[in-house]
Structure formats: structure tokens, C-alpha cells
């Protein structure tokens, strides 16, 4: 190591920020870091894309012919229209796994200690992570939408409404990434975090209107499926895309899907971000 010349202490005078400005700045620095990581490990982004693309192809070509939507002629192209909102919504919820694995990794690798020893906003580590996941989710949605167009999916209510639908999807994805953050903080091993992040998503996304009409489920299961936060977003997207096949299901949350979707997402986000930030603050690593 060469001799030091200008390394006397007390040189840099840090700028002082406080409140929301500090929080926004620090979150942005952390988000930038996580986005950079994603470009360095493109496998994660690629595999994150492959899964939903595979679902689109398998569901529309393999299962589509067999699934009957009430009030519509059964055909795989009808099913594709029905299916896409479900696939989109399922894809955004998978952001959970990214957030939980990423945060668990930071916790185990000692990087969180570095962050916690810096004069930065506490929650920025989590906000930065979830924001980076949001960017990744948006990218995935974009690619997925193009694949969907290729297999025959169409929007029928105009571009602004379609954008609104994507907005709802991103909101849901962002809310869910906070669940992922909490899982990542609780599990503390990246491997465990990945499976813990995904396992509960299967019942959540399948006991819903995403892949089959809820009316085909046993009657005791139907209210659960209709009140599932996930179903509200799926139904809202179907409406906004103009993909509703047959009549709107006769259930309150389905009849007010857009509002219910927004409310659910905000409630989930508020609750889980509060829990996560609290857990992060008190984490003993």
C-alpha cells in the first residue's frame, strides 16, 4: 500500500438532509445499487421472465381447451383473454421472492451492518430494494405483454384503461414486495427466503379467479376466492383490458374490483412496510 498523503481525518463535510428528502435520496442510492446488481446477475431477470411466459403458453395451449368459462364459448383463444389478467397478476406477486431473497442475502452477508452503521435513513434499505423490484416487475410485465399479444391476447377498452390496469398490477406487486421484505428479514437465509417467499403464493394465486372461474369451485371456497386481494386485481384488470368473458361474477368485491384492488394493495403495503421497517430497526444481526 502506498503512503497516504491527504487522508487526514475530518475532511469531507457531509450534506445535511432530513425527513422525506433524506429518505428519497437514500432510497434512490440503494435502489440504484440493487438495479446494478440485477444487470450483473441477468439470470435472475431472465428466469423471472421465463416462468410467466411458460405459464402463458402452457395454460393457453394445454389447459385452455378444457377450462370452460360460464357464458362464453369454450375455446383456447377465449381462455387466453380470460387468462392474461391472471398471469399478469401472478407475475407481479412473484416480486415477493426477489425481495425476500435479496434482503435475506444482505442480512447474512453483513452488508446490512454496513448500511446500519451509516448515517442514512433506516427504511431506505428496504424502500430501495422494493423500488428496484418494482422496476424489474415493470420490465417483466412489458415483455410478458408482448408475448401475450403474440398468442392472441388483445385489449378492448383503449390504451389509457390498459395503462391503468398495469398501474394496478404494479401497485399490487409493490405491496407484495413488502411482504417479501418481511419474509427476508425473518428468515435470514437466502435459500429459505426464496422458498418461504414463494410457497404461500401458490394457494393464494390459485384460490382465486386467475386461472379458472370461481363459480366452478366448491361453494365454501367461493367467498374466499372472491375476497382474495389477488382476485380483485385480476377482476379489475379484466375489466380495464376489456377481457371479461361472460357476466361479471355476482359478488361485491368483483363488482367493485378497481376500488377493492386499490384498497387491498394500500392496506397490504401499509401493514407490511410498517412491520418490515420495525423488524429492520430492531434486527439483531
Amino acid at each position, binding site marked *: *500500500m*502506498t*503512503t*497516504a498523503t*491527504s*487522508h*487526514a*481525518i*475530518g*475532511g*469531507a463535510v*457531509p*450534506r*445535511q*438532509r432530513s425527513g422525506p428528502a*433524506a429518505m428519497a*435520496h*437514500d432510497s434512490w*442510492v*440503494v435502489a*440504484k*445499487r440493487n438495479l*446494478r*446488481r440485477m444487470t*450483473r*446477475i441477468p439470470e435472475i431477470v431472465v428466469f423471472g421472465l421465463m416462468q410467466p411466459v411458460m405459464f402463458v403458453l402452457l395454460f393457453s395451449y394445454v389447459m385452455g381447451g378444457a377450462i370452460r368459462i360460464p357464458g362464453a364459448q369454450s375455446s383456447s383463444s377465449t381462455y387466453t383473454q380470460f387468462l392474461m389478467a391472471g398471469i399478469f397478476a401472478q407475475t407481479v406477486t412473484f416480486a415477493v421472492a426477489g425481495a425476500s431473497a435479496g434482503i435475506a442475502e444482505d442480512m447474512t*452477508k*453483513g*452488508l446490512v*451492518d*454496513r*448500511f*446500519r*452503521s*451509516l*448515517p*442514512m435513513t433506516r427504511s431506505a434499505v428496504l424502500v430501495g430494494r422494493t423500488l428496484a423490484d418494482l422496476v424489474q416487475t415493470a420490465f417483466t410485465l412489458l415483455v410478458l405483454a408482448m408475448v401475450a399479444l403474440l398468442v392472441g391476447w388483445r385489449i378492448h377498452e383503449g390504451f389509457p384503461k390498459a395503462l391503468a390496469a398495469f398501474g394496478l398490477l404494479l401497485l399490487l406487486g409493490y405491496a407484495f414486495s413488502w411482504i417479501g421484505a418481511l419474509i427476508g428479514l425473518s428468515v435470514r437465509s437466502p435459500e429459505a427466503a426464496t422458498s418461504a417467499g414463494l410457497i404461500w403464493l401458490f394457494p393464494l394465486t390459485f384460490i382465486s379467479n386467475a386461472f379458472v372461474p370461481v363459480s366452478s369451485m366448491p361453494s365454501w371456497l367461493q367467498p374466499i376466492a372472491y375476497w382474495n386481494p389477488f382476485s380483485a386485481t385480476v377482476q379489475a384488470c379484466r375489466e380495464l383490458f376489456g377481457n371479461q368473458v361472460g357476466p361479471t361474477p355476482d359478488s361485491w368485491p368483483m363488482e367493485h374490483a378497481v376500488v377493492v384492488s386499490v384498497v387491498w394493495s394500500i392496506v397490504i403495503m401499509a401493514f407490511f412496510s410498517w412491520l418490515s421497517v420495525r423488524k429492520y430497526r430492531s434486527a*439483531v*444481526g
Partner: protein
Amino acid sequence: MAPAIQAENLVKTFGDVRALDGVSLDVPEGTVLGLLGPNGAGKTTTVRVLTTLLRPDSGRATVAGVDVLKHPNKVRSLIGLSGQYAAVDEYLTGRENLQMVGELYQMTPRDAKARALELLEWFNLTEAMDRTAKTYSGGMRRRLDLAAALVVRPPVMFLDEPTTGLDPRNRLALWEVIETLVEQGTTLLLTTQYLEEADRLAHDIAVVDHGKVIARGTADELKAQIGGERVEVVVHERGDVTEALAALAPYAKGDPAVEKNTRKITVPVSGGAKVLADVIRELDSRSIEIDDIGLRRPTLDDVFLSLTGHATEAADTDEEQQSPAKGRKGHGKDA
């Protein structure tokens, strides 16, 4: 002047374990305190409390005059922490890592960038600065981690086992950096299990065991605490041992110890080099052939052993650290 680091009666329990059982210490400005102890003694927990990573159950602490519990964020802008394992993002380049830390210290992007380049040069990482840290060797990661702790030229630094797992060459290089920092006025709290390291770097040593400071002083004071020097003689012929004991008797300040197999006699003495010269003359006049002779002052190992009743060998329990363990030396007694 108030000490740069001051802790009073820190207590922290994890379940049934009393990790800190009333730790008090103070580090005057511009000095180095070595926190010496085996794994699990409470060294890291002490550092975590002082660097605001952990709240103690009770006790108080100040760093650079700022209360750690009341104004943690203020403390964070005054300290640098380099931990037991390199806390760098392995998917970022060396330069990006330092720049990110700079920006999180609230430096402008331009300042953060300039500072990053400066540090990379100082730490001999300029060539590797645009490679991801994943490709770095263990020594390079440690250097990067230490550089990250120096981004704002903090007046108070905490180094938690900075050289654990490093090979001798990298260890020496890090020592030199640390010495430079201290020359420039940085106050340093250093934890280590290596006596050699504490001996070389620290002005003052606090020996920690079971969450308590069990001894405090300079290396020399601690050594003096467990008694003075000894003369060690290895005679050539086993039959000469008795004769040699007789020759040493007038100089002995205590009972001699004899190891028959190695023909080694150890006698407590006082008087330093002069005694050694006298002993040599005496042995020579009796025509006792010797293989080796020396004046041995107690090492910190001896100090540790006599204070705690167990040796410091604990390095083999930290395998979970991800820093490459190759080149780790068994740090036994240095004679």
C-alpha cells in the same frame, strides 16, 4: 479532554447468555485500544453497541462526545466500521461500492466519486476498481471494506478483527494502513484474538472474557502483572541438568521448572540482560555446554492464560465467516 470512546457498564443479554456483563472502557482521543479476547468473549457485541448496531439492555456510551443511545445517527456520521467479514456488495465493482457508501454518508455524487478514487489508489485497488468485488481475493475484499469505513475520514474507527483469516502478507499491509490512520490522529478501537496484533497496534489493551473487562493496561503493564522475566536454558547433555540448576540457583527468584526431555530449565529472574550475562558466565565457568539460552519476557498469551485460565486459541470456531481461511496461521505462543 473527554475520551473519544467511553462505555459505562454495558449489559446485553441474548436469551440466557450474558454477552456483555458490565463492560466499561474508555479510549482517549488519538489512541488505540485493543480489545483482546477469545470468540464469544463479547468483543463484537461491544463494537456493535458502540457503533449503534445494537442497543444494550443497560449502560451508557458516548463516541466523540455524542451519546450512542440518544443520537445514534449523529454517531454514525462520526465513525467508520470495518467488520469481521468484508461487508461489500460482491456484485458491485470496487469503485461502485465506495461511491455508494459515500453517497449514503450524504456526500455529493461528485465528492463520493473523487473520494472513492483516492481510496482505491491508497489501497492498491485502482487496477481492480472496475471489476465486481466477487472477483476479488480475500485480502482485496478486506481492503475494500476498510476503505469503505474510511470514506468520510471518520475521527473514530472501529475495526472488528480486521485481519482474521488473512495471510501474513495481507495482515502486515493492513497493519501498516492502520498505523498510518493512527498517526493521522484517528481514535481506534480494535478487536482481535491475535496477541501479536494487539501488541503491535494498541497503546492500551483491555482483556475481555465472558462479557467483562478482566484486565486493562499497556502490553508491558499486563505482562508485568503476571510476573517478570525468566531465563530459559537448554543444556546439551541431559546429565548437566542438575549442575546447571545449581549454577542458576543464586539468580532464581522462584522455583525453577525443568523439562527433562527437552533439557530445558526455566528460572524466574529479575535484572534483565545483566542477569543473562552473569548466568552465561556462570554456566561457562562450570563447563556446561548449552544449546540455547535466552531471557524470556511473558507474552500476552501468558497474560491471557494466567488471567482467564484458558488460552486464546479460538480461531477454529469461526468457520462460518466467509472470508477465505487459507493462510490462517495457528497463532500459538511466540517465543
